[in-house]
């Protein structure tokens, strides 16, 4: 297993995702002899996991069962330990596309944060690209580096613990793309500029507040960036379900005076609700939006660093 290469079978040391049910998952590190408790009972790593195929159903000690999934950056994003606010797949997808990332890209990122975006970048730039990620907070930088080792992607990434606004990315003239998720991105743009390859590249800055975006765009313009473009993407997850709606009872249809009398006959009128205590109904399958959803994560500002 690695985050940039699929394996068929589970091995010792792998990180796997235990799927417990709808929106309920947990990541675990496979260690011979170890056990993991779930609400369905214990999973014994040696007998239940090692050597099993990814995607298998595993029966826990209490008889309940779970699926064991191969990790992907997207599964990691919804399962990782939060050390900061993290980026989610909707923003990540657009960042990846709009930064022109692909195998071989060299990327500079700051801050590393909880590593949600980092894993997605690594997946996309492997096997020949490199990620230079800068994290101000020492504890977090160390945690991230450890995760990269655990996830077998350490060879693709360099983690630096420094202040990108003061010290930059620690590399110059190498980047195809730069990503900023820091409180004052405008302070890092001059460093970003230096990090780019001579032929230029793409930059993205993620900020929750519009004032940050305004200052960032201003600085980007001053620094000679082009194609400056700010956008926002919101995703709705729809709940697919059957909906049953009762039909209104409007009384007997088009009755002449005769039939009308019949229907206004007390017995007939009273019989109805007994015979049909509710209403006749129609059922249709539909998809409904959630009652509440993420209404804002941040603004994504993209720009092109021209050659030179």
């Amino acid at each position, binding site marked *: 297993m690695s985050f940039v290469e699929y394996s068929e079978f589970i091995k010792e040391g792998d990180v796997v995702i235990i799927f417990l049910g709808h929106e309920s998952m947990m990541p675990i590190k496979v260690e011979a002899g170890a056990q993991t408790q779930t609400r369905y009972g214990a999973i014994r790593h040696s007998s239940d996991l090692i050597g099993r195929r990814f995607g298998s159903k595993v029966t826990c000690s209490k008889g309940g069962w779970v699926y064991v999934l191969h990790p992907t950056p997207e599964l990691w994003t919804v399962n990782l330990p939060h050390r*900061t*606010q993290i980026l989610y797949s909707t923003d990540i997808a657009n960042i990846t596309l709009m930064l022109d990332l692909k195998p071989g890209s060299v990327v500079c990122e700051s*801050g590393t944060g909880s590593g949600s975006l980092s894993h997605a970048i690594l997946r996309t730039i492997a096997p020949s690209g490199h990620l230079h990620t800068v994290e*101000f*907070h020492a*504890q*977090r930088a160390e945690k991230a580096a450890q995760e990269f080792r655990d996830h077998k992607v350490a060879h693709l990434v360099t983690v630096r613990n420094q202040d990108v606004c003061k010290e930059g990315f620690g590399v110059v003239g190498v980047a195809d793309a730069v990503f900023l998720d*820091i*409180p*004052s991105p405008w302070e890092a743009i001059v460093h970003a500029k230096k990090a780019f390859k001579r032929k230029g590249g793409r930059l993205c800055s993620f900020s*929750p*507040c*519009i*004032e940050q975006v305004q200052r960032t765009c201003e600085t980007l313009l001053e620094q000679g960036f082009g194609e400056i473009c700010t956008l926002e993407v919101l995703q*709705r997850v729809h709940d697919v379900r059957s*909906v049953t*709606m*009762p*039909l*209104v*009872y*409007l*009384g*007997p*249809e*088009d*009755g*002449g*005076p005769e*039939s*009308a*009398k019949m*229907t*206004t*006959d*007390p017995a007939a*009128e*009273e019989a109805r*609700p007994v015979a049909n205590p509710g*209403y006749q*109904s*129609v059922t*249709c399958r*539909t998809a*409904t*939006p*959630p*009652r*509440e*959803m*993420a*209404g*804002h*994560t*941040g*603004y994504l500002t993209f720009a092109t660093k021209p050659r030179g």
Partner: protein
Amino acid sequence: MADPLGVESDEEECRICEGEYVVLKRGEVYKSVQVEKRKKVIFEKQWIFMDNAVGQLYGSTFEVDSGGILNLRKPKQDEDSTDNKEAGLDNRHIVDDGKSQKLTRDDIESLKEQGLKGQEIIQQLIDNSTTFKDKTEFAQEKYIKKKKKKYESNVTVLKPSCRILAMMYHGREPGKICHLRYDTLAHMLTMGNIHAGSKIIVFETCAGLVLGSVMERMGGHGSVVQMYPGGGPVRAGMESFGFPSHFHETLHEFPLCKVNALLSGTLNLDEKDMDSQSNDSADKEKSGSSQVSSGGGEEGSSEPQSMEVSLDPAEAKKREEREKLREQKAQEKKAKLEEKRKRLAAAAALLEGRNADGLVIASRFSPCSALLCLLKFVAPSRPFVVYCQYREPLIECYTKLREQGGAISLRLTDSWLRHYQVLPNRTHPVLLMSGGGGYLLSGITVAAAASGAQQKSSEPAAKRIKLDEITSTADSSA
């Protein structure tokens, strides 16, 4: 400076009176209650006596004390002024060691016992937090919100309005109003051209909220006919508006189960029929008071058989009294029925003109059959609007209306509602938003077409072209 004529009546209507419906507000949470003395109401898990609100001005804010008594707060003190917000730009300096709050649980309890107000306690908590200033704004807000919920006990008393009640229902009990969002309700009232002096048909199962909103916009002028399914109209939401009594005179109700009879001219308004209907509805209503009295009657009538025949004068008097009571009850019942018959006749008369000025539907029922049927009561060149939580039933309505004709300018819409946080250097859309506000179908009635064929060619030309385009696009990539 102020208009002297306005001020007097102004003051009058601005005081909270006993018996009135008001809305309690704390933060973004609302609750509708009727002001009654010496009666507890629950709001946000707290018992409250409304007594001290009586005579105060609408819009006043009160602190709730431990006994549930309201104490008026001075204005300017009541806004959420926890504003020594010195936010860190991110939380990179925070190492969570579980020791950031210097106040202990006991400290807080003693603050409370000292009589500190909720907001003051929160300020204490902030001041004693070593990490608050370093937290991101997002985290700070979450923190304050959490603490506020725990320690604050302010209540503002508001005069009800469509806006406030719509937000209240949407926030507290969206299921009761078919998840109708307030911006969607706003759109219904506007697209329906609801205004004073018109005659509007309303079919809703939104607890009476839509009915009340329509009535508010009519201001007691004109008439509203509420079409109801089942045994009787639901109006709790409408009651919460606290309309003056003359508004109620403009309101009529008509049972949906008699619509076909009305349309076919076979509606029977005989007393006998009404009687059966009344029993019918009593069956369906859960707490029918008429059911209780009729049950009492039966008990009374079965009594004599089991009783010994005695001519004891006291007994005779008792029997006489019982007879009188029975007769009185029968009389009352008859009067009620007569009243009901009159109301039904009045509603029928309003509908029979087939000249209503608008139709508003918002229900949990499949809307199509009701829409097609009720449109027959609407005059030509009048707007109608149908709300549904789901899209598919309105697609059906749209399709059927197109086939049948008699309606133009059909539009199926939905909307996004986004709230913003506007603060210096921290402006952004609110992080949580409503996923959907439901769907609306609106249109305008026209005089029924002579020929169906002509009707069909009225609007869809543009659509057909679009469909052709799609087909050809599909073909070209085949």
